[in-house]
Structure formats: C-alpha cells, structure tokens
C-alpha cells in the first residue's frame, strides 16, 4: 500500500461542499418556511385578518401567536375545525426534499 507522499491531490471539493450543504440546507429551510406561511395564509379563515397576518416565520420556524389559532385548527365543541396550519406543513413536507435538492443542484 503506497503512502501519502507518492501522490498529489487532484481536486478536493469536499470541504467546500460541506459548507455548501450547510448553506443549502439553511436556504431550503427558509424557503420551506416561507412556503408554509404563504399556504397557511391562503387557507386561514378570515374575519378580521388578524390570524392570517399573524402567520410568519423566522428561519425555518413557522408560527402564529394568535390565541384562537388552535381552536380554528382543531375546532371546539361549539365550532367546526378549519385546519389551515398543519395541512400547509404536510403539503410542504412532501416538496421539501425535492426543493432541497433543487437548491443544492443550483449551488453545485
């Protein structure tokens, strides 16, 4: 088995790709979160618009801080459910892997 000093390195992009992977993953998270917000806003029930405008994301995290959002999402004994949040999440989850790859391919 030859030792290392017999050879030189052709091209070593592994460290660069590791960095790209990190950045690509971050972009994919951000993109997915933005898509979830858009889809959830489109599906959110609107009376005053407070719930819809409360949907936002920070990085890959999507959230709403409106107290009655869970009642709309799951329903109550007096009100039918209007699922708008996790349905958008599930829908985006199916696209996430493809979009991550699309981003990595564009960067690669």
């Amino acid at each position, binding site marked *: 088995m030859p030792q*290392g000093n017999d*050879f*030189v390195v052709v*091209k070593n992009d*592994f460290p660069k790709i590791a960095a790209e992977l990190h950045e690509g993953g971050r972009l994919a998270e951000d993109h*997915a979160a933005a898509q979830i917000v858009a889809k959830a806003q489109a599906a959110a029930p609107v009376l005053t618009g407070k719930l819809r405008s409360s949907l936002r994301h920070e990085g890959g995290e999507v959230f*709403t801080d409106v107290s009655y959002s869970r009642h709309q999402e799951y329903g109550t004994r007096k009100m039918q459910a209007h699922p708008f949040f*996790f349905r958008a999440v599930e829908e985006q*989850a199916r696209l996430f892997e493809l979009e991550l790859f699309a981003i990595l391919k564009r960067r690669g």
Partner: protein
Amino acid sequence: MPTAILRAVAKAETAQAEAKLTTLGKKINAIGTAGGKKMSAFGVAARLGFAAAGVAALAFAAKSVKSYQEHQVAINQLQNVLKNSPKLASATTAEFEKQATALQKLTGFQDEEILAADTVLARFNLTAKQLHEVTPLVLDYARATGKDANEAAGLIGRALLGNARALKLVGINFKATGDTAKDTAKIMDLLRGKVGGTAEAFGKTAVGKVAILKAEFDDFQEVVGKLVTDALVPVIGFMNKFLGVINVLPGPIRAGVVITVGLTGAFVGLGLALRVLRTSLAEFRVGLGTTAAAEGTAAGATTGMTGALGGLRAGLLTTTTAGLGLAGAIALIGLGTSEAIGGQKRHAEHIRAVSVEEQKLTAALNAGKISLRDVTSAAGGNQAALKKVAAAAGIAVDVTEKFTPDTWHLREALAAVGKTAPKTPNAITATGDAAAAAAPHIRSAADVLDYYARIAASVKAVRFLGGIPGHTQRAHRAQHGGFYRGLTLVGEEGPELVNFGRSGAYVHTNTQTRAMETVIPSGAASAGSSISGDIILQVGERELGRISRDALLKLKPSRVNLGLA
C-alpha cells in the same frame, strides 16, 4: 419571540453529512500533504497515468473501492496460508507486503499479483527466508516465459518438490536428488543464472515503465478506495443498528424517530460525495487536453515519468503532439457519447416522472383513496383499476388503452408502490433482516448504492406506517370513524391525545393535551417523548438513494467510452 400557539419547524438534517464530508476532505488533503508535496492538481504526467492504466475516469470511485478490496483479499489469503503453514507461522503479511511494494516498483507486477504468488509458494513448505528469495525469481521466470506471476509460482513450487518440467522452458535440466533443501538451493542458483534480473530489466523498458506506472496508479486507487470504504462502513453499521431499533417501536412513533439521528445526513453525504467526485473527474478529463508546455512542467515535478510518457505517446497517440492527440481523442469521446447523453436525459426524465407519480400514488394510498389491491391491479393493466388510481392520485393519463411507451412511467410507479407499500406492520422486520444479511456481501460502490437505495425505500415505508404525529392519524379517524393504534388525536371538545396501546387506551384530557403542546420545547419530538407541536420536516431518504443510484448509472456509458488502454 412571542409565545407560539401553533408552530412547525422546517429542518434539513445536514450536520452529520457536513461532518462526514469535512472529515473526508481532510483525509484526502492528508494524502497530498504527507510528503510536503501539496499541489492543487495532479501533474499532467500523472493524468496521463490515468489513461495508461486504462482506468475509466468517471468510474473512478467504484474502481477504487474494488481495487482496495482486491488488495485486502490478497492480504487475507496470504495471512490465511501463513497461519496454516508451520514453517511460516512466525512470518507476517507486513514483510511480504513490503517486499511486494518494492518489487512492484522494479518489475511492474502489481503488488496484489506478487502477494498472490507468495500465497501459492507458501503452500510448498518453504521457510520465510526461502520464500523471500524465490519470489523475485518467480517474477523473473514469469517475465522470461510470458506467464503470469501466479502460474509461474505454481510451476516453480512444483519444481522445488521435484517436478522440474517447468524449468525446461528456460533451458534448465535438473534432476532432483531427494534432498529438498539442497534441491531448492540448486534450483534457485540455476534460475538466477538463466533468468535472474529479467523482471527488473523489463521494468526499465518503456513498456515496463508504463506497467510500473499502472501498478502505482492501482495503489493510488487503493488509497482512495480505502477512504471511500472507511467513510461508508460506519454508515452501514449505523443503518443496521437503526433498523434494528426502529422495528421495536410502536408504529405511529416511528415517523418521529426516523430522522433526527441524522440518517438523512448520511445519504446526503453519499450522494454529494459521488457528485463531487464525478465533477472532479470530469475536470480531470478536460485536463487531459493541456498543452505540451504544461506537460513539461509536470514531468519535471514527477521524477521518473519521462520514459513512461514516451511509451505512452508511442502507444496511445498517432498525431504529432501529445496535447493535440489527447485533445483529439477527447473530442472523439465527446462525439461518441453525445447520443448516450441524450439517452441519459430521457432516462432522467422518465425516472423523474416515475418518482413524482409514485409520490402521488403513495399519498392516495395513505389517504385511503385507493387500496393496495387497486395499485397492483392497475400495474397489471386492469383498466378499471387504472382509471380509479389515476383519478385518486390526480395523474392525468389516457387510460383507454393499455400501457404505451408514453405511460410506462406510470406502470413503473405503480409497480414500485405495490412493492414498497407495507402490507403489514411486520414488513419492516423483513426489510431489516434483509438489509443486515446484505451487508457482508457488499463488493463494490455500485452494490453499496443499490443497498442504500433499497434501505432508503424501506425507510420511506416506515414513515408511511407512522405518518406525521397528530395528523395522519387524525385524518384517518375523520374519514373512517375508527381509530389508529398508538397515539391519536380525538376529541369533540378540542384535541385530546389518546394512546390506543395493545393493553388498552389511555386518554389525555384536552387540557393535558394542550399543555403538552406548550410545555414540550422546540425540537423535542422524538421517540418516547409523546407528541409536541413541532413537526420536523425530513429529507426523503428514498429520493436521496435514488439520486445516488442515478449518479452511478450515469457513469457507466462514460466508462465504456473512456476505455483508452
């Protein structure tokens, strides 16, 4: 941040992949820096060495793994013989490996060939000292008679036992006396006189230098192969452990588990590593067309390559300059592969169509819109079933006729879904066993990738078994009015979490359930931690496995076209 009432986290699990890629990058750099010779690129002489070795550039990774494994096999075989030979019990493979490396540089025989010859000779009851003396003579005999080292070792070994017919080939008439020690010494003397130094003399010719270059390049492949193998082995071990653990978890929780352990990272790493390697080697191919001036510089930096380059030019090129000749050869390769590339694109489109339809079908299957029987019937060409599944999955396809070339992708998607959809929760157990059984049989990078593709497919199935906590189950209840084993959200007065376990159900009140949503911090959704408001989006292992496999499939036509030697 204000208190989130509903929240979800999109997370690409890339940390492990980044760590693996960084480590691999460091190891590769270490090859170049160990001798203080770090360079940003191979010298042109070394690049020509690639061609001389007849190595298919774009299949480099797979060949490297194979090369490394062949070396390991040669070592293992020798070790086994040494262990079982009383006179060689104290000998080590390291000393033979050292001699083989030295002889390789002189004679052009690959070290694996020499080790294999040692393995043959070791069976003839020689001592370690005798073996070290006979091996170079075997190589001389092989070069003199045109036989390979392995066959030559067998013939000389028999001659040492008294069957001296092989010696007549080189003009030696020898009659055994019956004293093995004396006969052995005499035969070695006679061989030295007749063929001694033949192999070394061959190594000094232009052709011999090419052979040496080829052998040394093979060693380089072994180094790369070891790196690739080292990077893969922990992943394989991890996969086996992972599948073993996941089998014992309740179905609905499996989905929450699949993930966070960084499984996806391993696949991303694998796929990207291949892509990077392919990109690097594609650049290498372009580099073959560099000018004579660059070649001169590289030849200066690569001691002892000049003669080999002369032989290469004579053997490979017909035009006046090496640069033009290689550039021309590459142009021809380009023309020859254009059709193949077109085919690859069509193939890629087909695969993409299959993948998308597969996802749609699986979604329809999970949602209960179609049954597994519908899928298998449709795959078999049943038009009613085909119509039903196409409508349920939202696939626009003309189903008035049986499958045509334009709709074959749908048939493939149906067949794939039919195979991977779990018929019973126990299906994953079989997959785990099959995966464990497959591990010892991995022989090449292609096998490894195929192995991962299959495991990845089964992991996807696991996810379907569980669904996303709190959602798939809820949808199931809404549509069928029944319940799903494991954690399920129910409740007419707001969500209540129920565990439909085997020994009875436990209902968390709506207040408790809501408390769980708010108390469990971000990222806490994992095995045994009940349910949280977080959902971890996952990279699909199946897609990753498939992309890795596609990357390898695309390498094959190039390997054929680059067979220069």
